[in-house]
Each structure stands twice: as C-alpha cells, then as structure tokens.
C-alpha cells in the first residue's frame, strides 16, 4: 500500500453507473498496489451504494449525504468532494467522462491547480508512468498523454475499461462525512426527463441506431423490436432527433452520447463526422443504408445496401433463430 486513489462515483436513478466500477479498475491499472477510496455523494442513505463500490474493488468508501446534494450541481458536489480530497491528499483522482464528470472535473482540477486528462479510453504503463490514450479530432486520431506535474487526474470514457469482477465477499470501511455546503448559485429548478428509465446508452453492449432514413416515429418501432431481440438499446442520429422521430436523449455523437458497444447497427444513417465521433470506437459496426456511397460504409465492418424497411424485419427473424 502506498499511493491512494480517489474514485468519484456517479449515481443515476438511485443506482451507481457502471463507469464508476470501471473507474475503480482504471485506478488499479494505474497502480495495482494503490489504496482505492471510493466517494459517493447524494441525499439519504448511501450505505448500499458504498458497499457496491467495495464489491467492485474499492478498499474503503467515504460518503457525503446532504439535502443539497439531491441533484448534481458543480458547487454542491465540488464543495463535498474538495473536502474529501483535502483530507485524503490522494495521488490520483478518477471519474467517468459523463455529463457530471465533464462538468465537475475541470472545476476540481482548476481548484487543485493540476492537470487533467479527459476522456481516456485506455491506460498503458511505461515503467511506472501511466500513459493515457484518448481520441482526438472527432475520433480520427488518438493521442498518448502523461501527467508531468501534480496528481494523476483522469476521466474515463464509459464502456472502454473493463470493471473488475464483482466480489460480494469483500469488505471495507465506510465513513460518513459531514460537510457544510455553502450557498449554491446555480439552482436546478426542474429536470425534464427525456431518457427512458433503465437504459443507459453509454453502457449498452448492443445499440441499434436509427437516422433520418427511418422516416418517422413509427419507423423506429422495428428498431425497438430488434433491440429487444438482441438485449440492446435504441439510439439515433441528430438527423432523426431533429426530425422528431425520437427524443434527443437517444442522440449519439459529438453533441450526444459517446458509446462503445460490442455491436452497433446504424440504420438509415449517413455517417457524418459528428455522428462518427460518438460511435466509431464500437467494436463491430454494421451499416444498413440504401445509398452505397454513404460514408457510414467507410467505417462499417459489414454493410447491407438496401431498404431498411425490408432488411430490418428479416434481421429480426434471423436473430430470433440464433438467440
């Protein structure tokens, strides 16, 4: 035991997001001998979440519960987590590159006057020095980055670094920390939930994404059916969202969710760079498009040139046979 790494977890709908467990694994990749201190903040009892972090590899957990932490604000979370960082003096901090991670991590880094490597998808070691790999230029290139000064502060892209096996025999200290939270200047008045509960696109292993080619809200129905057969989730291009075939919560790309499933099936999507930025790291990509020149075929492993309304029903039948 030498270095200490803080993993800032993230809760959605009362459950930890999977990237929190991946962040624990990332900390272990950076330093296999490190003590991993999980952090969970929220409102109400956080004990079961804290235990979950320990099952996934945290050595101990610090939780902060406060009514002002019911919804995320950079100030509320920032004050709580800074108090922990100041107490613990960690060698590193890891969290998910999610909406909250992107909002909070630069604030903490600024306060700590440290560097921050955002959106890492893999970690390598050069002797003892961790090297972080991150996509740049809308995913067209990758860079290897190191911290040259100060603590190792990193956010990781969901679904790229494998979490450790869950081990319910693990135990560890769970500390409840009281933090005074000063006035918050950005008040969340309301949250209009658009994403359906339970599906977190960034964690899905199979994604069926529809584009403008799907042509209507009804046109998405077969995509949902296919997703169900495959145990996957439905996503969309900006084109489909703008045309109101589906909700913006499904949008994948530079301004939407960034996903890395095992299987991505792009249906009636042309493959604009901003869309590719959100999915080009997927392990296997299938494109279904009636235009043989569509850019999506340039990054697809397999393509079917054809009318999606003919192809999708056949696919559903065929997948049912093998599932």
């Amino acid at each position: 035991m030498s270095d200490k790494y803080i993993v800032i977890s993230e809760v959605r709908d009362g459950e930890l997001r999977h990237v929190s467990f991946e962040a624990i694994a990332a900390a272990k990749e950076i330093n296999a001998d490190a003590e991993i201190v999980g952090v969970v903040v929220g409102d109400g009892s956080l004990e079961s979440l804290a235990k979950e972090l320990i099952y996934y590899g945290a050595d101990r957990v610090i939780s902060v519960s406060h009514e002002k932490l019911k919804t995320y604000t950079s100030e509320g979370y920032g004050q709580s987590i800074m108090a922990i960082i100041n107490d613990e003096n960690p060698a590193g901090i890891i969290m998910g590159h999610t909406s909250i991670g992107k909002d909070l991590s630069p604030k903490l880094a600024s306060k700590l006057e440290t560097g921050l490597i955002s959106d890492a998808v893999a970690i390598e070691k050069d002797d003892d020095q961790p090297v972080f790999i991150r996509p740049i230029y809308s995913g067209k290139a990758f860079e290897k980055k190191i911290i040259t000064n100060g603590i190792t502060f990193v956010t990781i892209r969901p679904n790229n670094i494998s979490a450790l096996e869950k081990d319910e025999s693990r135990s560890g200290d769970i500390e409840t920390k009281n933090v005074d939270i000063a006035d918050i200047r950005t008040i969340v008045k309301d949250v209009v939930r658009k994403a359906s509960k339970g599906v977190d696109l960034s964690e899905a292993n199979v994604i069926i994404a529809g584009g403008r080619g799907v042509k209507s809200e009804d046109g998405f129905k077969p995509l949902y059916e296919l997703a169900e057969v495959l145990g996957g989730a439905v996503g969309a291009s900006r084109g489909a969202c703008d045309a109101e075939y589906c909700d913006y919560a499904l949008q994948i790309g530079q301004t939407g969710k960034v996903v890395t499933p095992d299987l991505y099936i792009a249906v009636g999507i042309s493959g604009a760079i901003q869309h590719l930025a959100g999915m080009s790291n997927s392990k296997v990509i299938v494109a279904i498009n009636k235009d043989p020149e569509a850019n999506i075929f340039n990054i697809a492993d397999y393509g079917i040139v054809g009318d999606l309304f003919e192809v999708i029903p056949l696919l559903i039948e065929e997948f049912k046979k093998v599932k």
Partner: protein
Amino acid sequence: MNIYVLLKKTFDTEEKISVAGGTIEDEGAEFIINPYDEYAVEEAITQRDAHGGEVTVVTVGDEDSEKQLRTALAMGADKAVLINTEEDLDEGDSFTTVKILEAYFEDKEVDLILAGNVAIDEASGQVGPRLAELLGFPYVTTITNLDIKDETVTIEKDVEGDVEIIETSLPLLVTCQQGLNEPRYPSLPGIMKAKKKPLEELEIDDLDLDEEDVEAKTKTIDIYLPPEKEAGRVLEGEISDQVSELVSLLKNEKKVL
C-alpha cells in the same frame, strides 16, 4: 452588458487528418472557428442586441487566429483580442490557456462569458469550467437556452438528453451546446465592417505572466491514427441471403451475439 466569447481556432475535422512524427500535419489544413464557439458568438450577439452592451471575442492563439477573430467580428462582435503566444511558448495544455485567460480577465468588468462546450480537435472540454473556477464565477455547461431578465438568468442545460432548468445570476460563464441557436453567416457589409473593428494583440508579458506561470501540467507524447480498419465488407446477393450471412458473421466470426 459586457459580454465575452472564448473562441478557439480548430482544425476542420471533416478534413482528412494526417500524422507525421507523432504530430498532426497542419500544413495547408483548413482551420475554422470551433463550431460550438459559433453558437457562443451568435448567442453573445443576440444577448447584446436585447440588453445592450458590447461583445468581445478573445482567443489564445497565434498570428493565424486573426482570421477566425475577423469572422466573429463580421458576424457582429464588436471587438477582438488575440493573445499571441507564438513567440513565448512552445508547449501548453488547458491549464496554460486558462492561466492566460485568467490573467486577461483579472482587471475586466465582466457580466457574461460564453465558451464552447468542447473543441472538436483536442476535445477536453476543460477550458470553460476551469476559467469560471479561477474567476469565482458560477458556470453552467452545455446550455441550449439562455434567458436573462434583470438579475435572474434562466438556463436550459442538456444533460445527456434530459433538460435541466437552472436559475442563476450574473456574472456567469456558460458553455454552449448544439441546439442553442443557429449561427448566422457573416454578411458582406459585416465582412467589410469587420476589417475596421478593433483587434487588440497581446503577449503573455503584457499580462504579467512568465513561461513558468503557465507551464503545462500534461504532455502529449504521441499522436497516431487508429490502425487502418480492414475494408468493411459490403454483402452481396439476395437481401434475405445477405441477412443470414450477416447474422452468421456476427455470431461465428465476430462472436458478438
């Protein structure tokens, strides 16, 4: 209102990217205003037109950044500031940029700063929130609507597709998300006017900064292109045969089912 826009010049990622010796080849490449900063410029102009005041566009860059600043002026910004680091600095990261911006804003009266939520090249998304923290401003990232009424600012924030309604106050820093507005194209008269609008050029020395004050905390040690993907296979034959072949390939070859 004193409105500032943080603007970054970026490589147009629609273009082909080539790498040589661990760096991106930018010889002859097309540079543009980071698309999310276009939303910021547009919003700044709209807010100024509604509430009065002045829009100043600020960039940390090099001599060539003047082109993007002039475009922002042509869209309707009033003034531009180029903090040119070409002579003084070889390396930098988000920390560097933000330290420089902090020094620039130190003696300014500011009501609102608009930035992009992310730059499409290096894409760390750090600059906005980092700067807000140093200036002691509240901030809201990835905004899709901004409404300023007297002392109260009401914002719609995109949170992975959900929408948060946030109430806050000035001074404030926001980062702009797609959906906020439709950036205008510079008009011909706008382009003519832009040539005469003030563009101030500063160096870090003018901001009382030394190289050590802004020394980067991270370093890029390599840049490379992803391994060339085997050309994808476009299947052939009857559609129903293609479908069976696809399913069998996914199952047996790629083993993703």
